[in-house]
């Protein structure tokens, strides 16, 4: 059953599949999956080809001050998210013999193509399939890391990480702590997993369990929003001496395309990025919803004559409080946006920290808003009412301003 769903997702993620089909599909059936209501003004599909959140030119890609000098002077290449992740793993495998890549179906390239050609290039000893066991994959990775390797383990969908939870919580996260002055750790371990809604993933191909990991001391939890960012953050995670959970929004694997520097570079962990400066409201998000925030901001700024600051957390734990506090002290109004359920989500932690910091609390002019998934499971045909969309983000900007 799991495998059938993978096929469906792969087919759906391939944009050309429906267009080239010779089967005539009535337009009304097609619309329910791929388009928007005819009169929608806010809930329009994200136009990844024009969004300012992606670097559409080489110049834009190289302008980041976080890139090292040689990379900024080097070439770029157009990549989507899965290609950038593949590129990062290719670099890691090439530069460090202790890096190994494994998981279910990674040898032929992975069900999302993230490990394409890595086995051919780096050998079947270093890029290989495991039996279908998430707890086995995680335990195996911990053992490799405990003996000084830098394993990159893949969990096929974040929805299937739970069998590996014991290994992550009780073993990976506590390994350094319990080993004490012996000094051994599994810091070389990186666990990648596709996450988030994809339009039709239902209960078990849509989840965003990041807040479950942020409640585990010892783990770093990272979610990139774009190809260039994914490459830099993944390389940082692989080289980090703490175990990292790297969550990849699968809806962006093919959709998000941008110019990515071809050299090896890291982006800092636990450091947020201010994507757009503003003075009236701060929006904090990470991963795919940033694109929805961007669309909502564009409309809100046009309609209301305001300016909104947009912050990408990038690492959701340990997260960058200072950047967030500074922004909120400036704007006085703030909302947090994420796909996962609102209760005890990342928004809860960010909101609590904002009100807990005396200087930031005093500057608050409205309650901290959370725009997130409802407190339900991700239901197949109701997803568009469940996950935060442009309209809900737009409406919350207005509410925060009107308070």
């Amino acid at each position: 059953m799991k495998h059938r769903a993978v096929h469906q997702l792969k087919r759906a993620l391939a944009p050309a599949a429906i267009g080239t089909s010779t089967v005539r599909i009535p337009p009304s059936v097609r619309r329910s999956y791929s388009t928007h209501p005819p009169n929608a003004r806010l809930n329009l599909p994200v136009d990844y080809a024009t969004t300012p959140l992606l670097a559409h030119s080489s110049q834009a890609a190289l302008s980041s001050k976080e890139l090292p000098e040689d990379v900024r002077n080097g070439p770029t290449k157009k990549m989507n998210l899965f290609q950038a992740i593949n590129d990062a793993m290719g670099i890691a495998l090439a530069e460090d013999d202790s890096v190994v890549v494994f998981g279910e179906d990674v040898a032929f390239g992975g069900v999302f193509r993230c490990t394409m050609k890595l086995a051919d290039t780096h050998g079947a000893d270093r890029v290989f399939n495991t039996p279908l066991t998430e707890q086995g994959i995680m335990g195996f990775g911990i053992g490799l890391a405990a003996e000084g390797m830098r394993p990159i383990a893949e969990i096929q969908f974040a929805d299937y990480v739970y069998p590996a939870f014991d290994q992550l919580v009780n073993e990976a996260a506590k390994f350094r702590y319990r080993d004490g002055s012996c000094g051994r750790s599994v810091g070389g371990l990186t666990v990648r997993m596709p996450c988030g809604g994809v339009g039709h993933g239902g209960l078990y191909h849509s989840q965003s369990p990041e807040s479950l990991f942020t409640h585990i001391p010892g783990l770093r939890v990272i979610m990139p929003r774009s190809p260039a960012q994914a490459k830099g953050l993944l390389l940082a995670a692989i080289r980090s001496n703490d175990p990292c959970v790297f969550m990849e929004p699968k809806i962006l694997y093919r959709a998000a395309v941008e110019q990515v520097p071809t050299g090896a570079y890291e982006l800092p962990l636990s450091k947020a990025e201010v994507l757009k400066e503003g003075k009236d409201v701060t929006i904090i998000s990470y991963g795919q919803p940033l694109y929805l925030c961007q669309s909502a901001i564009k409309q809100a700024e046009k309609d209301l004559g305001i300016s909104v600051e947009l912050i990408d957390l990038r690492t959701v734990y340990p997260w960058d409080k200072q950047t967030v506090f500074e922004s909120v002290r400036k704007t006085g109004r703030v909302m947090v946006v994420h796909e996962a359920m609102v209760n005890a989500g990342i928004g809860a932690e960010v909101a609590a920290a904002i009100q807990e910091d005396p200087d930031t609390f005093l500057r608050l002019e409205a309650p901290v808003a959370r725009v997130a998934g409802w407190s339900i499971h991700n239901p197949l045909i109701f997803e568009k009412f469940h996950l935060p969309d442009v309209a809900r983000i737009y409406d919350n900007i207005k509410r925060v301003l009107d308070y």
Partner: protein
Amino acid sequence: MKSRALRHVPLRRAALAKSPAVPFALRSASSLSQRPNSDYVSFPGALKSAFTTSLRFEAPESYPALPTYRVVDQHGVVVDQSFQPDISDEEVVRLYRDMVFISIMDLIMFDAQRQGRLSFYMVSAGEEAVSIGSSSVLDREDVMFCQYREQGVFKERGWTAKEFMGQLFANKRDPGRGRSMPVHYGSKELNIHSISSPLATQLPQASGAAYALKMQRLQDPNVNPRVVAAYFGEGAASEGDFHAALNIAATRSCPVIFICRNNGYAISTPTLDQYRGDGIASRGIGYVFFAVREATKKAREMALQDGGKPVLIEAMTYRVSHHSTSDDSFAYRARVEVEDWKRRDNPITRLRKWMEAKGIWDEAKEKEARDSLRKEILKAFSEAEREKKPPIRAMFEDVYEELTDDLKAQMAELKDMLDKYPEEYDVAEYEGGKDSLKP
């Protein structure tokens, strides 16, 4: 099943695209799996499985129970005439003393826990030969993962009473820095990973570690060939991690030896409630020091063959002690049964009888050994009890490689509390007092 389906579909499609004679290609593909009049078919999931017309389900009863390998009997008499000890008499005496050390330490610490002088303890009575016998034939460089009833391997690899006591009393000599419960030993020097309470989690880790050793030797042939040994009880073998560990070790050809201590009980649960198969694996008597040694020696050799392979040893013993200091085992088993096992079979007396028959041990030596070991343990005990605890700061360290901003802030917050409410906290026994919390 999933991976195969995904991999084969695109392959088949590619073949179709390349070949002009599509139907022929398809027919030849199917004839590959079954020749005319063949009495078997090579399903991808089971190669060379013969057809049969008799419907018969496999049943464990159709097979005899796996035999149990032994070398000497309970009187210390050698029953395997081909057996030749591969170590010197001095070495046997050293290992015997290690076994006695563990059994004396167990008695002392069990009582100490009963007196409330440490929070918890677990003895390994009756299982000393499993840990010490197996450890003694492994290379010191071989990596070990333990469950918690393997004190013997730490002793055999060279831990002294002082080191045991440091961990048990969680004082400043504890390598675990006072964070884990007693008996959760770990030593980088001895190549033994720190013990954690969750059962069987160490098993897939052992497979991964063995794969790491294999890779490191592939990448640098100057590295010595090494294996991983992973210990676990028969109860832990019911965990999913056991299943995962063996399967992944086999598919990745990992040089790992899984050593199961089948002692009949998981806390109160008898093996009858644990499994209905014939135990865990290929077995040997866990009481027979030499049987454990021979089996582990052979296992190590096999584990390193053909680029590495996993081996499973099931050492049959009986848990003569309570599960832990938090357990009264007479609530679920008869005292007489335990006494019976203690009297009938004991790894220490069995080896002692063998040594006495060989003329390398006698009553006087036994008394001297017991007295001096007891003295050594008690001395370390009282020293450890008086030793300072690790600094309070240690509670915040090693969560991450570096202290995070949050942890630094929380450390300062705790320091403030200790400053503000000095009467509420006793910090004197911690090295450096509350000053260790200064940034």
